[in-house]
């Protein structure tokens, strides 16, 4: 493979890695895939360094040329259908060693794949909140309240996403809103206690994927990436707690 082609290849493979991280891959999965692909193309040496927000890859070709590229990852959105297809793509690249233009074409196809539509997300948030309110022992009225607040949480996350671009702050605001609305519902006599409704709504915001990935990365030796993710998940959990505390403080120490 000549030099322009090699550079083009590096560019495409970096994009695969980037999209993997965005759609929710563990860091060691992305590193593994990139290593394997470059090994399949017969590079002399490949150095891949990835953390949750940045990638650096240097390849040494057999004829002594060196190429480096970096990517900055700023957003993540769990999309496991996309990750599944990216995995398949990287596996098939290892087998076929196809040309960069072919990789680019398939990558574009994956990037335009169907994601979970917004209205479905609204329903999912509402149902999750309702179902976990019931799960923790809530009655009919509480379940229905949970349903409404769950949908409103998604709305709050959407509003925050469009205005402040800060996920931690979005979680804080949502938690605050959920607590305040639950307290309001109790004081108007709609529901007997706030506990189950708030727990059910907290379940929609818990950073489950983040923590699972953090644990996996930590164990397989990607300590930096694992720690970053652990801290991120802990701060998210703190933001949720802070939202609750803020409402209780404003209400003068008790919302019941």
């Amino acid at each position, binding site marked *: 493979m000549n030099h322009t082609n090699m550079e083009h290849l590096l560019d495409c493979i970096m994009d695969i890695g980037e999209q993997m991280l965005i759609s*929710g*891959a*563990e860091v*060691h*999965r992305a*590193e*593994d895939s990139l*290593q*394997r692909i470059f*090994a*399949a193309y017969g590079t002399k040496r490949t150095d891949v360094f990835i953390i949750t927000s940045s990638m650096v890859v240097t390849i040494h070709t057999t004829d002594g040329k060196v190429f480096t590229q970096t990517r900055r990852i700023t957003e993540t959105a*769990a*999309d*496991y*259908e*996309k*990750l*599944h297809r990216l*995995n*398949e793509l990287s596996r098939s690249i*290892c087998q076929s060693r196809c040309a960069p233009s072919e990789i680019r074409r398939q990558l574009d196809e994956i990037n335009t794949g169907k*994601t*979970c539509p917004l209205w*479905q*997300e609204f*329903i*999912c*948030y509402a*149902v*999750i909140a309702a*179902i*976990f309110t*019931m*799960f*923790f*022992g809530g009655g009919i009225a509480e379940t229905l309240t949970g349903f409404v607040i769950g949908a409103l949480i998604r709305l709050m996350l959407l509003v925050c996403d469009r205005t402040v671009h800060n996920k931690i702050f979005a979680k804080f605001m949502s938690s605050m809103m959920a607590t305040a609305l639950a307290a309001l519902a109790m004081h108007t006599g709609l529901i007997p206690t706030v*506990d189950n409704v*708030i*727990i059910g709504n*907290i*379940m929609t915001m*818990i950073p*489950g*994927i983040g*923590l*699972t*990935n953090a*644990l*996996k990365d930590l*164990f*397989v*030796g*990607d300590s930096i990436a694992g720690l970053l993710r652990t801290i991120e998940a802990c701060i998210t*959990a703190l933001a949720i*707690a802070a939202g*609750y*505390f803020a409402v*209780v403080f404003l209400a003068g*120490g*008790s919302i019941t």
Partner: protein
Amino acid sequence: MKQIEIIQLGAVLIGAFCFGTLFNLKGKKLLASAFGSILSWGLFLLLGRVIDNEPVNYFIVAVVVSLYSEVMARLLRTPATPIVTTSLIPLIPGGSLYYTMAYAFESDFSKFLAKAVSTLKLASALALGILAVTALSQLIFRRWNTQRTGIKLRSTGSKK
């Protein structure tokens, strides 16, 4: 089987479908996650009748469900993370976390401390269970992958 347990099993099933949809899981992967959630909560309820120790039960369920997810992930050739996360969501100590927060505002310090410690125990049991299986599958599948593809990767850990 008590009525609340049936409600809970139904709830985790629907919950798993919703979380799966949010993670954009499709077809068999979604079904595998839904079954995993039933497995995790059902096993937890069963264990509760035999062993009277919640953290231990959490650990056992986490190990079994993680194993299940790793196997399903290999069968469906997909990452294990979404399956294990959706399956273990009912075990997330959201309830005890909330009561820890709530007790923080009551003057009863011992109640708060007891709840905080129990939440921490449950969360660590869950984490340890996932870790144990990840460790195991890394040992097995890393070697297997190397043999299958003939590509040897440098280890990420420290080398002697």
